């Protein structure tokens, strides 16, 4: 049962791929693989971001706002203020990390639940993003940055994807194999006990929130770089998909725990379905039906297979 559960989503994924390959002539091709792998890096990074917080039972609802902010800040600094790409990216990442630190200060130090703090601070940050961009699309990101993000790197897929892959690897290692990873799970299970056991609960929780915002910023930078421009409203559309993928990811590979490869699988599983539907010509509401339906179905099935093995939020 354990194995069924562990690979349930992978099996469903395979079935979906088979189905679409059967129904659509153009689906089963390396170009589809390239397409799916090269365009989901932003959502992958954002998903890994929220996953880190979820792993210590913190909800960061500001992820969408941070994605938007990070991208726009780079675009403003690089495109409008004429900073070289390096410093612009660095400043943007630091700014996002600082924003995460503010979230952490209020929720971890003062003890206000992170879900409320980030709901508010995310809205605030969206306002700031609209302010600094004058509510308009910002262009002018250096060609070098753009090429870096979009030129094929290996097997025709651009570099950011491999960055995302590396990030997965790093997070998998940290969560599965290092003391920090175990401690995060411990904190998620019972904060008080973790504190009594001598863990630096405050530091680890705060660190997770900072990491989430930092990755959110990174996702935004990849987005802006890929498009050579940044849209201040673009971030919001990442909030729910990132959570959906992180939750779905927690039902596979290491069921019951938020885990990096699970998130990876979830992101590409959901995209495969959408892409397949588009190949078949069902753009529009069928995509949403598929997206929502497969999320519920996958989580429920894997839950039934594993007998109550999902991270608890209650």
């Amino acid at each position, binding site marked *: 049962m354990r194995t069924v559960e562990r690979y349930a989503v992978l099996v469903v994924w395979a079935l979906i791929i088979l189905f679409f390959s059967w129904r659509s002539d153009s689906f089963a091709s390396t170009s589809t693989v390239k397409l799916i792998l090269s365009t989901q890096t932003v959502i992958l990074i954002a998903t890994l971001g929220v996953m880190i917080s979820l792993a210590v039972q913190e909800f960061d609802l500001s992820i969408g706002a941070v994605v938007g902010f990070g991208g726009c800040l780079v675009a403003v600094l690089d495109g409008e203020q004429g900073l070289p790409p390096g410093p612009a990216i660095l400043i943007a990442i630091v700014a996002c990390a600082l924003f995460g630190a503010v979230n952490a200060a209020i929720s971890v130090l003062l003890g206000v639940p992170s879900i409320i703090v980030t709901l508010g601070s995310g809205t605030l940050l969206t306002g700031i993003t609209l302010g600094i961009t004058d509510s308009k699309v910002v262009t002018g990101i250096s060609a070098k940055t753009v090429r870096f993000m979009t030129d094929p790197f290996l097997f025709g897929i651009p570099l950011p994807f491999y960055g995302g892959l590396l990030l997965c690897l790093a997070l998998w290692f940290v969560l599965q*194999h290092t003391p920090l990873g175990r401690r995060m799970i411990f904190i998620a*299970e019972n904060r008080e006990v973790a504190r009594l056991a001598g863990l630096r609960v405050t530091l680890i929780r705060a660190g997770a929130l900072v990491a989430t915002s930092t990755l959110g910023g990174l996702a935004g930078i990849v987005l802006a770089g890929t498009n050579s421009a940044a849209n201040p409203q673009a971030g919001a559309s990442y909030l729910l998909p990132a959570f959906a993928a992180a939750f779905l990811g927690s039902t596979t590979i290491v069921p019951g725990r938020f885990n990096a490869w699970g998130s990876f699988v979830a992101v590409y599983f959901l995209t495969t379905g959408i892409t397949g539907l588009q190949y078949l010509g069902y753009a529009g509401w069928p995509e949403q039906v598929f997206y929502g339906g497969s999320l519920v179905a996958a989580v429920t099935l894997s839950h039934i297979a594993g007998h109550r093995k999902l991270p608890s939020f209650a």
Partner: protein
Amino acid sequence: MDEVEAVLELAGVSKTFDGVRVLHDVTLTVRAGEILGLIGENGSGKSTLIKILSGYHSPDPGARIELDAASFIHQDLALVPSMTVLENLRIARFDTGFGWRIRWSAERARVGRFLKQVGLDVHPDTRVGDLSVTEQALVAMARGLADIEETGSSHPLLVLDEPTAYLPNDGVRRLFGVLRDLAADGAAIVFVSHRLDEVRELCDRVAVLRGGDLVAVVSDQSEKELLRLMLGRPVEELYPDTPSPEGEPLLSVDGLSGGTLADLSFTARPGEIIGFAGLPGSGYDEVPYLLTGARPAGGGRVRFDGQELAAATLRPRSAIRLGLALLPADRAHTGCAPALTVRENMTLPTLPAFTRFRAVVNQRRERRAALEQVERFAVVPRRTETALRYLSGGNQQKVLLAKWMLGQPKVLALHEPTQGVDVGAKREIFAHLSDAAAAGAVVLLSTVEHEDLAHLCSRVHVFHGGRCRRVIEQADLTPGRLAEAVYAS
């Protein structure tokens, strides 16, 4: 004694919560090789003092605390049930290899050693939640030992807050052996317990807290004298007279099984207090849960108050409606809602009794009833609107017993009802149990406290391997015989 190194020195330690001072100017020294007992009534400040030592609470300004290497076993064990024994033991100090990778095999070997030391035979990768309460207590103990070794100090301090509350006799013996060895190796040990006989047996000196004041540090005192120091008044008889059961059986159980328990049958008449004893895993502690539907029974029939039903169909709701009440042992997870007030916790199952038209809660009546219970059970503080988490462990226990007594149950199924309860409170709880029995209730008592069973029960069922192997009737009931029956193989 002067040449022996002081491992812990406290001076002027006070602690105030929300304007209430719960520790007052405590000054204390513990030396290497010494086992110090720390006793006091519920709420006298023992756990608070310990949490100050561990850095969990910070003391009021002006305190001086000198201590370098210490390890703590907290009152509530501080384990995470969903994680493995290994993880619980080593979470704060995993041994890492290249790239901070946890060295699982080395860790497993190390943990195995500590488990062996406390006499626990489980695999390090077992989930703590799958262990019995006793085994969990031993895991906590093993963690203490592991932490001590980790400090590398030749004179570490080990603090145990009521480690024996969950332990059966042989576990206690094993624990004491370990502690004595540690002390002989130069450790200092602070041992908190409400079992004065154990304290006297184990400890070199005993520090007594009363209402936040350290009133005495004594050695070689009689149990009576320790009690007097603790309470500040002479002691009364601990055990009440038990009523004599009469009439037709109120409850009869036929072939009850479920969990580790198989095929239990017994009958109980109104006024009877029936004990259940055994080693961990023997099934004695399943009875209260199976009979009240808290855990689904596998089979068996229950005849109660003229109705007969399959035990498997019992649910807490139906059981409560029939008049069966359960006081579980795991207070933190299944007993109470710590963030809610004493009143709210107390009236939860009986709320409809405090309503107008069964729809509107009459807060005034509810509050009055809660206050009456607080008075009756001598809960400290005598307030109903405090969140339960601000009460000491023993007082929480009293509130929970009071909660079930409000419903005047016909059968009271109790699992370790006096865990973490001081002698005074224990006396009160026993008095209440005996009153309930006198009023015609059946009391079912699953506990490791053989002394209590021997004094209170009209009959004790002793379990081995999931089955009731012996029933000791009142006439033959002594703590010694009970222990003999429990440990007989």
